């Protein structure tokens, strides 16, 4: 019946299908993408949910230690998300709404921590403020034990500050200064202007940023392991169940528990916030209009704040370098290359990380743009489903993805465990939403008429895609490439279950070395990681010059 009525309309399913039939290549591409989603997202997740028995579920729900871990997870991640957001907002506000001296410096420094795994901030924290920390013990001779929720809070705030800053900065940039200038002309100023215009306009974007940071910190693995100590959270507990207690079904249950809050967050973000978005649509700031809306006192307070944050970040990176290249920092300051040789030069893990991350970056960028092109510019049945599936992984904690993949692909025709392939699949799934999101926003800013002209001149979808879309999206492409490369190099939770003796990764090495107490080699590996990322970007910039956009995230 529906088919019959649709036959008469021009926009129904039937006409969409008829249009597809004229372009077999397009049909093939759509089919392949759906097959990919089915194999790598839907199938593993069903498998994961089917593993635990009813008894496991009951045990997990009634078990006191698991309830405790659940509460800890929510409490600690919401707390550190809130503080990271406040700091990120102040920093981003200072960068976008003032003309502070040294803004370029502040901008670069804020991005530095994202070049290393979040666990590096925990590592630096232990080295500086731990029970034998350089500051707490060597300098101040204090007897403190900051392992536990407090230390975790401090560390996670620093660890997630860059993410909060980057997202909030994006939100603030997208607010048109016209509205604020208009309000200023009408007499609003100071805090009143901030509260009634800026904050009002930024709220939906801020809420989205909050949720993004929250999802990441809910699933974070390294710092709870390293700094949380006896303060167990779901991510570490799921890992311990699988690896320590040999209880895979329980690990699966706990990772499902972790998905519940993140999925709720995802749906709120997607179906509530996006519909109530106040963000002005003109997009980029209007050239020539600079907004200076803060009083001198506030300006200097912000300056002091930015200095404090930047110094903290430089302190973290500094102490990691010092530990990496001195024999025993705090006791023996002899320069040594031993740790760097052991952790970086003699270890194949950095090379593995680089290879996997590069492949991932290529895949996510291409897949992202292909998906964006299809969902935005082509009409076919199941478009909304495709859009949903491409964004879904953003809400899935890394441990969940890792466990699901390993259960799905440990046997059968697609046996991939113990290879680098499964690592790349995991990373790609995790980064896909970034590539997709980036491509969607890039594509939305491009006029359709160019593509239509291409089509009118006889080009099919594939030709249009390669000849028109890809070159025009150069900028968004390079951003998602850089971003997914960096995130993949640094990811921990996604790959912890996927690595094998032959295919160990540098981020895991840093965490496990630090966790066993080998702070020096862990530091050296972290330095090697940052150097690798810098060198890669430097090289890319040298070769591609203006073809790639790296440092302007």
């Amino acid at each position: 019946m529906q088919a019959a009525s649709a036959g008469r309309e021009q926009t129904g399913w039937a006409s969409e299908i008829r249009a597809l039939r004229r372009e077999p290549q397009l049909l093939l591409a759509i089919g392949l993408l759906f097959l990919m989603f089915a194999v790598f997202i839907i199938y593993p997740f069903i498998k994961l949910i089917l593993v635990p028995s009813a008894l496991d579920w009951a045990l997990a729900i009634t078990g006191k230690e698991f309830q405790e871990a659940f509460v800890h997870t929510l409490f600690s991640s919401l707390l550190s998300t809130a503080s990271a957001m406040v700091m990120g907002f102040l920093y981003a506000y200072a960068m976008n709404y003032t003309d502070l001296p040294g803004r370029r410096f502040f901008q670069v420094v804020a991005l530095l921590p994202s070049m290393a795994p979040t666990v590096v901030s925990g590592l630096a924290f232990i080295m500086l403020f731990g029970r034998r920390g350089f500051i707490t013990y060597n300098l101040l001779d204090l007897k403190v034990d900051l392992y536990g929720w407090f230390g975790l809070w401090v560390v996670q705030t620093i660890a997630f500050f860059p993410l909060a800053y980057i997202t909030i900065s994006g939100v603030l940039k997208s607010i048109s200064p016209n509205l604020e200038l208009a309000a200023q002309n009408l007499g609003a100023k100071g805090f009143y202007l901030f509260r009634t215009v800026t904050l009002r306009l930024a709220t939906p974007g801020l809420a989205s940023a909050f949720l993004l940071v929250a999802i990441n910190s809910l699933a974070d693995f390294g710092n709870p392991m390293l700094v949380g100590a006896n303060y167990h959270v779901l991510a570490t507990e799921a890992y311990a169940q699988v690896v320590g207690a040999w209880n895979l079904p329980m690990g699966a249950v706990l990772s499902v528990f972790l998905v519940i809050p993140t999925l709720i967050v995802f749906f709120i973000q997607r179906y509530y916030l996006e519909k109530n978005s106040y963000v002005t649509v003109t997009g980029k700031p209007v050239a020539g209009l600079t907004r200076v809306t803060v009083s001198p006192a506030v300006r200097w307070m912000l300056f002091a704040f930015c200095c404090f944050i930047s110094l903290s970040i430089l302190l973290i990176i500094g102490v990691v370098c010092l530990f990496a290249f001195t024999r025993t920092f705090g006791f023996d300051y002899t320069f040594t290359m031993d740790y760097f040789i052991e952790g970086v030069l003699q270890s194949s893990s950095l090379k593995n990380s680089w290879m996997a991350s590069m492949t991932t970056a290529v895949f996510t960028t291409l897949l992202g743009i292909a998906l964006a092109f299809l969902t935005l510019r082509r009409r076919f049945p199941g478009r909304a489903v495709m859009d949903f599936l491409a964004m879904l992984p953003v809400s899935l904690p890394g441990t969940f993805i890792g466990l699901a993949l390993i259960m799905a692909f440990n046997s059968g025709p697609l046996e991939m465990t113990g290879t680098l392939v499964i690592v790349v699949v995991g990373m790609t799934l995790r980064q896909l939403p970034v590539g997709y999101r980036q491509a969607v926003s890039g594509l939305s800013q491009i006029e359709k008429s160019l593509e239509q002209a291409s089509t009118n001149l006889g080009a099919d979808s594939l030709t249009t895609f390669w000849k028109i879309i890809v070159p025009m999206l150069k900028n968004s492409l390079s951003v998602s490439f850089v971003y997914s490369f960096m995130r993949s190099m640094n990811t921990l939770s996604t790959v912890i279950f996927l690595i094998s003796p032959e295919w160990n990764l540098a981020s895991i090495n840093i965490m496990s070395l630090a966790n066993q107490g080998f702070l020096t080699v862990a530091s050296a590996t972290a330095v090697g990681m940052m150097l690798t990322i810098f060198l890669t970007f430097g090289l890319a910039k040298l070769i591609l010059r203006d073809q790639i956009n790296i440092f302007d995230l």
Partner: protein
Amino acid sequence: MNFKKMAAAFLTGACMLTAIGCGGGGGGEKPKDAKAEQSLKGKEVVLYVSFHEDTTKELAKGFKEKTGCEVKFIRLPTGEAVARLIAEKDAPKADVWLGGTIDAHEKMKAEGITTKYTSPDEKNLPAAYVDKDGFWKGTYLETLAIGVNEARFNKEFKGKVEMPTKLEDLLNPAFKGEIIMPDPAKSGTGSTFLTSVVQCMGEEKGLELLKGIKANVAQLTPSGFTPAQKCGAGEFLITVNFLSDQMNVSNKGQKIISTVFPNAGWTLCGVSKLKGAPHDAAANAFIDYMMSKEAGDAMVKTANGIACNPKSITPAGSKPLNELPLYKDYDFAKAGKEKDALTAKFAGL
């Protein structure tokens, strides 16, 4: 669903976070040139090894010098080796599984993966360190010990409290927040501690003692090795874990005073022949070699373990095997059965 195989992939993480019972570090010295028989020249033997790399290389070299046989090996942590052995049950790729704690060797015996082999050299070993049914043989022994950071003890505690040498000493309130030990639920070292204390003292008294100690413990770690490292660094004063781990840290310069406490729990690192081993004669010869004094010496030097062969050297700073106050009646099989119930009880203390 094939859980075992799946577990193989997980255990890579485990190998780094959960220190494998039978592993070690330290520098390797060259073994004395053995009288070469070279009877297996041109042959090869394939091993799955759960020792550290340098120990394995040292043993492979010694065996080759003695017999002329080539040694091929893949290094796998205990849990992962188990997973792989089970997966390959019908067509084993290796001849011998070397290393790995005895509870895992017991499991392989029960699964029908390993096979009987009576070595002419097993008479070198005390009877307790050889399987009564002839499946596994012990190579070296890991014993629990109380480790104390020497520098910190001398600076902060000397004169005020006695150096702790037995478990009851750990109940002293002066040590509150200064003890670190592995979590029995997550680490083999931790579960060896828990089950041996309970077996030796009986459940009620054992758990009572552990409850008191737990109140003083600052951190329960998922890895058996971490406590030694953090004690060596001075973060914590006292560690309770395997002696060899403490000595590995101590020998690198961060001095730990280790005491094997009375009735200390222990475990063996075993060697077993695999059923259907492709290279039968070489496998037997390798197991014979593992019972020798030279092999014992190599393990002591590279891993700081205590060799099961009493003629082998003792690690520097440790007493000979027969002088250690070990809990002689420790029952591996019983410990394995009770482990889950006991770890749950310990968590609730």
